Each structure stands twice: as C-alpha cells, then as structure tokens.
C-alpha cells in the first residue's frame, strides 16, 4: 500500500429519514480542523436514499459531499453500508476516515477497516495531527483506569477512528462557504441478499434524554446502595436536572443503562454537572469533562474527579447533599 496515494479527510455523516443528523456537524468540526492542519480537502460521505439539505453540509465545513444514493441505503444495514463505503474509499482514497461512535458508526467502521486491512481506533476523545509525520494521532481512554493512550496507524490507509457523539460542538454555519456535491450510484452491488430490514420500533423509555439536559446530577459507587443513590435523584428533582450515573452504579442495578455516562455510556456536555460519590475514572471523565461547570462532592480529597471540577466539596455526600437540597428549596420558596 502506497500511503502517499491517499490524501484528504473524510467524515461519515449520518442521516435519519432523509434528514442530516446533528452528529454529522460535530464530525465536520473535528474533520475541518484536521484537514486544515494537513492542508487538504474535507469531504463528507452521506449514505442514504433521498437526503435533504446536502448544502448544509458544505456550509458546516465540507469541501465536498459524496451522496451515495440508493434505496438500499435508506435504513442502515451492515452489508450495503460497508460495500458503499469501501467502494467510495477505494475511489477517493482519503488518508483519514472518521465516523461517529453511534450504533451505525461502531458497526460499519470495523467492517470497513477489516475489508481494507487497515487500523481503527474506537471512541477517540481527542484527534490531532503529528506535524512531522503528517499522521493522525488518535487518543482514547485505555483500560480500566486512569490512563489515556495515543494510537497511530503508520503503515496502512486510511487511518480510521470513531469519536463519541456530543464530545465536540457542531461546526458553526458559514453562509459564505462553497463546495461540491457529487452523487454516487453504485447500483446492484448495494442490494443485500442476506439481510432484510423489517421495522423500527421507537422506545421512549430507552432514550432518557439526559444529553439534552442543562443540568445533570450524577452518582457513583460512593452512594453505597440503591437507597443512597436516591439522594442524587432528589437533588436532580430540586434542580430540574437529569440523572446520570457511573458504570459501577448501573452495574449494581441502582439505575438503568440509559443513564450511564462515560466511555461505555453517553457523553454529555451540560451547563452544570454535579458528580456525587464519583471517583472520576478516565472512562467516566470521557463522558462528562466537556461540561461547562463541574461540581464534585466526594469524601476522598485525592479523588480524580476534583481535578476536572470547578468547585469541589470534600465531604460526606449524605451530609452535603441533604443540606444542599434544603438550601435550594429555601431559595426557591424565598423567590
């Protein structure tokens, strides 16, 4: 493989029912900065049938949009999506391909990487370019604790990575931007003989929308048990906040998975994040450290959560939180 043949940054946009999904604009934000550092074009692949507003993708930072258009791509199926993306990559030869760590991105990217025999790094929190080597540096939290790993793909192309939804802000709109929209028709090769999409069933209980909450109160193992975790829910109620949890709290069965924040859960970026009884493993921090203001309450003065906090209280959550709830209630009553 001649790595020099590959040039440009490509992001894999997503559409739902023909509308461009917000995560596409987040990817364009990441992709634009990488493309500018390399001095190359940024392209965006959109796989779908009819897709509205492809021009918006240009205004948000893409130089080129490749719309692979087929009714076989209207809903996600691994086979057709993989074949379309492999074909597009082989034609366009981007040096970097980035997708969102959604159920779609996390499924199609490993399939494409394996077909192309190239590397893939999951759930990156930080992407950068090594200026000397002109190579993608992919940083993600690693194994079990308090370590980050930076990974590169030196010998094969494209260099591939997925990034967490909501870990970047969407690229701003720039009305003056221009670019090219190209439609690709790959015909019968996209027909799937082995897979059939039957239906989508919406499940509102599945999607607790903590990602849209302005304030999140989140609890971890320090709350000791299900009863203790209720403190977090009580505080959230007073603040009109969403409830979050660490993986430990979810695995202990104190709250459902849809509330899990961190590497194996959701990434959130609220105005205020209150972490109660959370030690602050890298996995958890990966899901919340871009919050505007972070408050931490923990008994252990050395807990890593304090390092990302704007305001920390070293103390017993079972004393501090009830006091806070009382104070807030009085404040509300007074107002």
């Amino acid at each position: 493989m001649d790595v020099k043949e590959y040039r440009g940054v490509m992001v894999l946009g997503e559409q739902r029912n023909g509308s461009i999904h917000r995560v596409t604009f987040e990817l364009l934000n990441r992709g634009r900065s990488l493309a500018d550092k390399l001095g190359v074009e940024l392209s965006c692949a959109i796989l779908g049938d009819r897709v509205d507003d492809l021009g918006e993708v240009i205004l948000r930072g893409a130089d080129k949009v490749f719309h692979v258009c087929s009714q076989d791509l209207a809903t996600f199926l691994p086979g057709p999506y993989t074949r379309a993306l492999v074909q597009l990559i082989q034609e366009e030869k981007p040096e970097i391909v980035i997708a969102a760590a959604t159920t779609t991105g996390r499924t199609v990217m490993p399939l494409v990487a394996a077909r192309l025999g190239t590397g893939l790094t999951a759930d990156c929190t930080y992407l950068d370019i090594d200026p000397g080597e002109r190579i993608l540096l992919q940083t993600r939290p690693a194994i079990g604790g308090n370590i980050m790993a930076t990974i590169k793909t030196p010998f094969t192309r494209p260099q591939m990575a997925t990034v967490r939804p909501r870990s970047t802000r969407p690229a701003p709109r720039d009305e003056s931007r221009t670019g090219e929209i190209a439609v690709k028709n790959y015909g019968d090769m996209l027909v799937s003989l082995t897979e059939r999409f039957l239906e989508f069933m919406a499940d509102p209980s599945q999607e607790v929308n903590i990602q849209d909450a302005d304030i999140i109160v989140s609890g971890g193992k320090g709350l000791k048990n299900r009863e203790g975790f209720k403190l977090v829910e009580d505080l959230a109620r007073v603040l009109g906040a969403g409830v979050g949890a660490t993986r430990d709290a979810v695995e202990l069965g104190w709250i459902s998975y849809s509330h899990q924040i961190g590497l194996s859960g959701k990434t959130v970026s609220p105005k205020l994040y209150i972490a109660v009884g959370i030690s602050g493993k890298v996995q958890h921090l990966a899901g919340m450290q871009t919050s505007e203001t972070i408050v931490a309450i923990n008994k252990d003065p050395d807990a890593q959560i304090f390092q990302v906090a704007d305001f920390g209280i070293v103390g017993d959550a079972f004393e501090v939180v009830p006091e806070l709830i009382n104070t807030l209630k009085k404040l509300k009553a007074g107002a």
Partner: protein
Amino acid sequence: MNIVVLIKQVPGTDNVKMDPKTGTMIRTGKDNIINPLDENALEEALRLKRSLKNVTVTVISMGPESAMKAIKEAIAMGADGGILLSGRAFAGSDTIATARALSSAIRKLWPVDLILCGERATDGETGQTGAMVAAMLDIPVQTYVQKLEVGDGIITVERLVEGGFERIQVKIPALVTVVKGINQPGFPTLAGKLRAKEVQVPIWGPEDVGLVPDEIGLKGSPTRVVKIFSPKLSRDTIMYHHDNTGRAVSELVNFLSAREIIV
C-alpha cells in the same frame, strides 16, 4: 446447528497494568473473569441448545494459557467444548490481528451456523472485534442484539439503537454481538464442572490456524500505541473541606449564582 461463542478473559478489577514500552496490557492478574457480556453470548447459545435439537456450542478464546480457566468455566456452564488460541506470537494483537486469528480458527471449525459474542469487553472497550471477524469470514453481522430468534436458515434479531430498536432478518451463517439485556447468564453446575475437567481443550498456535507470525501480534497489527499517559485535567478548582458543611454548601450556592446557573 454449530454455534461458536467468542469469549475473552478480562481482569475482574479495574487495576490493569500496562507495559510502558509497548503500551499493551500485561495480563497476569489472578482475578481474571469471563468478560461479562461474553457470558450473555454464551447464555444465548446455551438457551438455543436447550430449545433446539442437535446444537453444539464451542467456545473460542485467544489469550495467555491462563485463559484456559475461562474456557473451562464456559464448559462448566454448559458449552460442549472449547479451543484456546495461545502463543507468544499472538501477544500485542490489536483488534484487526485478533479478528484475523479468531476468524482463522472459526474457519477451521467450519461449517459453523452462528457466531455469538459480547458487544464489547470491559478492558479494551473497543467493541470492534466481533464485526471484524464477520467481515473476514464474509458473513452477515448484527450488532447490539437484545433478542434473537432462530428460524429456517435465517435469524430474526432485535437490535438496540438510539431511540428504540430495529427488527432485522439475516441469513445464517451469521455473527451476532449481544447486549446485556438479552438474557440472564446462568452459573456453572456441579455436573458441568466435572465435565469441564474431562473435556480436552486443544491449544492452537498460529500454525494450527494457517497463520504466519507476521499476520498476528504486534507485527500483524495496523495500529501502534504511540504513548500512554495520565490525562492532564486542568480546571482551577475551588475546594471546600467537610469541617463546615453549611458553609461549603452556601459557598457552592453563591458560586452557582455567580455563574448564573441557578437564580
């Protein structure tokens, strides 16, 4: 019906050591367990074995020789047999090299009708290997599966996605990665434990699955760890200690008011 379950032995605690030179994991811990989601994959295979006729369940794991414990445990839980992929040449494999080794082993067991694995492992948390195995075997894949039904030459799955779930039908042979909600894993039985002692679990090296050392391990891995580091977390933190809870709380409320978060 031949079912293969891919399992990984992972540290039971979060205290994993890293080799500072290669940036890969040092796997020698004593408290190793079967990756929890792989137990769900195994349970799903065992559920099919209980409800259908002529089902054989084989577990495959890649890892150091100590991973034999995980395979024996899977047999004690009800699997018919297992294979351990082990050898120095496998060490340091990234997800592509791991998938290459696993898919080569599965090919040797062919015909296989269904391959089940957990959606991700608790140590690496990449969730990539399953789909990569499917790509290398050129069979359909379904990920994030919370419900699985086997029909005549097809399976129907419920796939957990953002905001709901999808129902999808695929032809077998196929690979399915499962999420926690699919079932409740069982436990090893006494009879199973006795059987696990009897069953011979072969250890396969690269040559046994037709691979040369350059295709696996660090050499066969397209990715390289450049560095590992403790994250620099930088915020100017205002800290209050517990000696006066009331004071700490009122300072916090003032702080939040000043930032116009609460009014």
